[in-house]
């Protein structure tokens, strides 16, 4: 499968459902705003796709303050899916993104199956949306995510409802807070998902020993993200990639091309970079370059030749 290649012939493109990505690197929802915030640092056209902040039917103000605290090697955060709502997203945010030649994937959240379906319908009619990532796993919102993501039947119901509401690429995003993640991946596939992304944050907590209160204030728990979860995420992605036929997108603690390649070797078709975007806004470009260099050095012509080649 591998062949000698020159500088330009390394092909980083991959297919994610109906979307063709020019390379396998995308921002993880919630860590890249609506793209605009990063325009001083990178050219959005260089990315595989843009995945925007979690979007709900109605605007949401999100969690109380003290939303993010640093933990060793990561973040504990509870943003509570603050967002402007799907209508203002389409009116105010999408036009900016339409200027670029980059697929836009909208991460959606909801409190009922109907809400997920409704947001999907609205987005499907908007020009410039290529895919829907379904956040069934957001651990921060009391009524939202957790409920669907830890029950395979609820997972199936949400994915099926979104599937029925759109022809766009549908990509449910799994939560790691379960005993056997493969059951959830299978449920998504059966429900008609075009791809599966994982993982969202692990549920975590941090206490200020002086005030005896959560360091996240009134938000008792939060999602643990960042480099510290990478080994956990990698193992889950590896497990899921072995049991489903749809493309798998790896997420969790990626900070470098090496990290991204670990996920690809474990079977991921593409990756999302989350927390580390906040640290180095240009990191995704470094990752794309690094993946290209790796393939060139090893004289491999494309990602298909290495995906899932981890030797277990």
């Amino acid at each position, binding site marked *: 499968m591998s062949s000698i290649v020159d500088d330009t012939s390394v092909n980083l493109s991959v297919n994610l459902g109906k979307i063709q990505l020019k390379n396998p690197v995308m921002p993880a929802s919630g*860590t890249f705003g609506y793209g605009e*915030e990063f325009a001083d640092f990178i050219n959005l056209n260089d990315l595989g796709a843009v995945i925007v902040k979690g979007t709900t039917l109605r605007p949401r103000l999100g969690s109380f*303050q*003290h939303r*993010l605290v640093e933990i060793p090697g990561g973040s504990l955060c509870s943003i509570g899916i603050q967002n*402007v709502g799907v209508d203002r997203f389409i009116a105010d945010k999408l036009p900016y993104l339409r200027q670029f030649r980059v697929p836009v994937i909208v991460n959606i959240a909801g409190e009922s199956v109907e809400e997920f379906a409704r947001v999907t319908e609205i987005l499907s009619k908007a020009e410039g949306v290529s895919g829907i990532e379904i956040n069934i796993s957001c651990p921060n919102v009391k009524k939202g995510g957790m409920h669907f993501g830890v029950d395979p039947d609820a997972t199936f119901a949400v994915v099926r409802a979104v599937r029925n509401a759109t022809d766009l690429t549908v990509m449910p995003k799994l939560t790691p807070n379960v005993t056997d993640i493969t059951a959830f991946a299978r449920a998504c596939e059966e429900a008609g998902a075009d791809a599966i992304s994982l993982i969202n944050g692990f549920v975590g907590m941090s206490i200020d020993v002086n005030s005896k209160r959560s360091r996240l204030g009134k938000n008792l728990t939060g999602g643990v993200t960042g480099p510290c979860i990478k080994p956990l995420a990698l193992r889950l992605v590896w497990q899921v990639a072995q049991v489903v036929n749809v493309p798998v997108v790896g997420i969790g603690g990626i900070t470098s091309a090496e990290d991204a390649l670990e996920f690809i070797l474990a079977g991921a078709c593409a990756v999302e970079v989350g927390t580390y*975007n906040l640290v180095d*806004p240009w990191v995704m470009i470094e990752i794309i370059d690094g993946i290209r260099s790796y393939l060139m050095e090893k004289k491999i012509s494309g990602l298909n030749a290495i995906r899932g080649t981890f030797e277990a």
Partner: protein
Amino acid sequence: MFREESTVLANEELAPGFWKMRLVAPGIAAATKPGQFINIKVTRCKDPLFRRPFTVFRCSDFGGGNTGIELVYEIVGRGTRVMSAMRKGEGLDLIGPLGRGFELRHDKRVHILVGSGVGLPALFMLGEELSLAAGRRELELVIMIDAKTKKRLILEEEFRSLNGKTMISIHDGGYDYHGYVTEMLRTYIDEEGIAADCAIYACGPELMFKAMVPICSQYNVPAQISMERNMGCGVGACLSCVCRVNKEAVMKYRDIRSSHVQFEDEGNSGYALVCRDGPVFNIDEVIFDE
């Protein structure tokens, strides 16, 4: 805003726990306005992970072709401890300038800076600007400095070198004023009868701002305050640095379409982003004690 890979020129202790760092950073030095901040990556390791925000204390020409910035910081945790161990020649990765700084109230005559601890550095560039104008007799500059103890008093000399009146208040006494800076502020406005003529610019702990609220409303004095929040990105992407704000006040001061403020559907409040809409806010915009 942009990235600048800078080099430490000097790093020295000002007072126990307080340090000053000099960084070669010509790009950021040229672009920074009073009250803006930079975001520093203190290590190349994964802990500490996030960048740390610091106000630019001063932009200077350090000689020898080096222009750059100075930071004044207090050691409070792991990141600042790592910074204090840095020595001349080490590299440091910066993003800046970030945020929205102070706006000079040209309609006022007396400009009062109110600062405490590591809030003081946020006021110095504005102080320099006001000092120039004060030198030209266009306005009056008053500098009020607060410290818990005399030992924790920093930057006194730097602020005294400006064309202004410097007043220092120490909580446990032993200097110009015994007590809190806010009491000194109230007395000053009251005794000088300048309520209608003055504007306040402040940086310090939230408790200080809260003590200023009744003073500002009693005398109807405008105040700009520089807020702090834990930050993820510093560029408005992660929505972690929110500050509860009052809708009516925000609408009065800001073009809402170019701001990052999001309001409740119903009700009179919302969230602004300290990293984009701030760090400087008008005191009446902020809702304290969420």
